[in-house]
């Protein structure tokens, strides 16, 4: 083998370290063409996709964060609205209770006033009736007493004017006595 290489090298034709210039040219041209295609098309295309992908992922994360923020804001709002609604309901309930109490109080007052009025009316009526009774009694008592007295005393006492005076005086004394007792 060594012999073969050495002999080939001395011949110069097949020395493996001596390149074929045409092959070198083809390799150089092929490599240059490929490098050109890679620089011009392949690398920019891949880099563009990589950049777009990175952007898409970062954009997606930003979008998700935004959605999260929106959701938590909405939740906060709902909570606030719920609290407000509860407060409102409480307030309405309180108001209703207060109103009810007020209505009740008013009704009570009205009833009390009505009863007072009825009582007063009754008192007035009673008073007037009593007055009437007193008047009628006074008249009747006078008549009765006079009649009785005239029956008892007889004709001497038939003078109306005098008997009326006597009766009035008697009754006045009676009233004064009553008033004194009352005092």
């Amino acid at each position, binding site marked *: 083998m060594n012999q073969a290489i050495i002999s080939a090298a001395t011949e110069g034709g097949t020395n493996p370290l001596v390149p074929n210039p045409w092959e070198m040219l083809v390799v150089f041209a092929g490599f240059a063409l490929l490098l050109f*295609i890679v620089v011009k098309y392949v690398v920019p295309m*891949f880099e563009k996709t990589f950049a777009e992908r990175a952007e898409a992922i970062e954009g997606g994360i930003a979008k998700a964060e935004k959605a999260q923020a929106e959701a938590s804001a909405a939740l906060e709002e709902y909570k606030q609205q719920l609290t407000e609604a509860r407060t409102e309901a409480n307030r309405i309930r309180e108001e209703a209770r207060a109103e009810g109490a007020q209505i009740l109080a008013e009704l009570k007052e009205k009833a009390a006033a009505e009863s007072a009025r009825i009582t007063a009316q009754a008192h007035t009526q009673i008073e007037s009736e009593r007055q009437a009774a007193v008047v009628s009694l006074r008249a009747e008592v006078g008549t009765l007493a006079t009649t009785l007295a005239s029956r008892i005393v007889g004709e001497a006492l038939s003078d109306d004017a005098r008997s009326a005076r006597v009766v009035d005086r008697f009754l006045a004394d009676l009233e004064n006595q009553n008033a004194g007792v009352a005092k």
Partner: protein
Amino acid sequence: MIALALPAQDSGTFTPPGIEELHLPAILPWGAADGFSKQMLLVILSVVIIATFFLLAARKQQLVPGKLQFAGEAAYSFVRNGIAKDIIGGRDFMKYVPLLFTLFFFILVNNIYGAIPVIQLPTFSHVGGAYVLALIVYVTWIGIGIKRNGLKYFKLATVPSGVPFYILPIVVPIEIISNFLVRPVTHSLRLFATMLAGHLIVMISGAGIEFLVMQENVLLKGASVLVLAGAIAMYMLEALIMVLQAYVFTLLTAIYIEGALHADSH
């Protein structure tokens, strides 16, 4: 292969195929010693394959990739992030992604040819292509170094900081030789030699199997199975090395560029 086996049959001794078998006759004009060779056709084919694949993969770019786009993106990201970003890093790495990407897939496809039946010829088993690529990288990293640091770059690259002055006479020549002379040679020959050796191994085992099968002796005929098993193992190893060398070449390119970019901190 038949041509290789014929002399063996005639003489009864095994003559392994040599280096000269790597130089097939030209396609255009057919059978000529010089002209448009299979290697040249394969290089052009590799450009078509790589460009077609990545243009198709990158054509309908969608945020949620399909199968082809996903494969293209994975391949692209492997070079972009796995080599360029990890080695060069910083804000500068994007500028060198196209070069590294092209290098990796150009070498990968041209190497993998060696593992594909019928094609079965890694382009870089001829040294010319490896020289060209190493030269492109050599010019590139020296250019980057000069652009970054001016002519001071050569001092930065050859005079390591923190070395006592009395050692410098030894260190500086070593640095010059290793960085500016040996580096491009090893860079190209590493790729060339591994491809050449791999191709030779596949050829020799193929010829060996053929030779053994042609033998009258049944035992020798049977022994071809052992060689076949070995050949398959070597083929697998070779396929691994083909991918590995593409990676190594690109990785070293990235390291050289990084060294030129940050020469002042080395």
